[in-house]
């Protein structure tokens, strides 16, 4: 195993009936001779399922303008069902069909992801007032079972991890997929972490930024939209935690991962 890579697959990459063949072919090449772990998202599919089950989803907005799902107990159960059930098995099945020996894991399996539940969240309510509310079932990852990943990857398995953590009281917790990816990458001391998305990288004034140093990131964050800034925060967290480099790039192109690793695509975040 000469290189370790963690790849985050966004929810939009999972939509549609036809598989994303260029992406899967890249993953397959990465598996051969390298250590690969995959983390997936899929928040939109959770929302769709909740709607089908008649569970209204409440969205909350932070003072900085980030919109997030409010995860109450019932939503946490739907979240677990969709993330660890529907989406994870779909990805594992797809990868298996292409000859990748994928193994599906949630944060519960082998205590892979432990998290502390957030007690309070500060939101901006409908009247524009800042308020603290109960944190619900969201969490911050506190530990990753690195040994489990080492064993699986050492035996040639490709872990496919859903962003569902096990809380301190063994409750299901909704954890951010990008942050989960960073936590996994740091735990296995990955050489690279790749966040696949639907744009070609970090855009500034309509142009892709090819490289960002973590020293200049704060200045840049002031000029970038909320959606991308969560990815940048996660990328910076990974690099500060010892990951060689983080790359934000599109998953909808030919050779999405290999080109990014060879420096031909995306935005690279490094020291």
């Amino acid at each position, binding site marked *: 195993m000469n290189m370790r890579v963690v790849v985050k697959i966004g929810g939009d990459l999972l939509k549609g009936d036809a598989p994303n063949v260029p992406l899967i072919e890249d993953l397959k090449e990465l598996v051969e001779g390298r250590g690969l772990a995959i983390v997936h998202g899929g928040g939109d599919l959770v929302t769709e399922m909740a709607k089908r089950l008649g569970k209204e989803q409440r969205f909350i907005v932070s003072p900085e303008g980030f919109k997030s799902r409010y995860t109450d107990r019932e939503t946490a159960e739907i979240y677990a069902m969709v993330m660890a059930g529907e989406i994870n098995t779909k990805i594992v099945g797809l990868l298996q069909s292409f000859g990748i020996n994928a193994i599906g894991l949630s944060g519960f399996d082998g205590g892979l992801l432990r998290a502390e539940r957030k007690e309070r969240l500060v939101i901006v309510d409908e009247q524009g007032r800042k308020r603290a509310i109960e944190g619900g079932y*969201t969490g911050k990852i506190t530990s990753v079972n690195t040994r489990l990943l080492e064993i699986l990857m050492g035996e040639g398995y490709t872990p496919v991890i859903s962003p569902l953590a096990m809380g301190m009281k063994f409750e299901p917790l909704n954890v*951010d997929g990008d942050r989960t990816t960073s936590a996994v990458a740091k735990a296995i001391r990955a050489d690279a972490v790749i966040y696949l998305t639907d744009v070609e990288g970090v855009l500034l004034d309509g142009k892709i930024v090819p490289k960002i140093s973590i020293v200049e990131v704060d200045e840049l964050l002031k000029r970038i939209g909320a959606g991308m800034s*969560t990815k940048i925060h996660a990328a910076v967290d990974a690099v500060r935690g010892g990951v060689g480099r983080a790359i934000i790039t599109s998953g909808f192109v030919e050779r999405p991962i290999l080109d990014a690793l060879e420096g031909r695509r995306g935005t690279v975040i490094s020291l």
Partner: protein
Amino acid sequence: MKLKCPECDGDIEVKEVIEGEILSCNDCGAELEVNKKKDGSIELKVAESEGEDWGE
């Protein structure tokens, strides 16, 4: 209504507030959460700040 900032002891003048509302202290800048006590009175406590990663 006049309340005390638990951080700097400065005075904070408030009109209508709701449980959980976050106020800023004009003197020290602390973010404070409105807490209604059992007897109906109001106190301010330093707001706990949680990161932005609230899940998927």
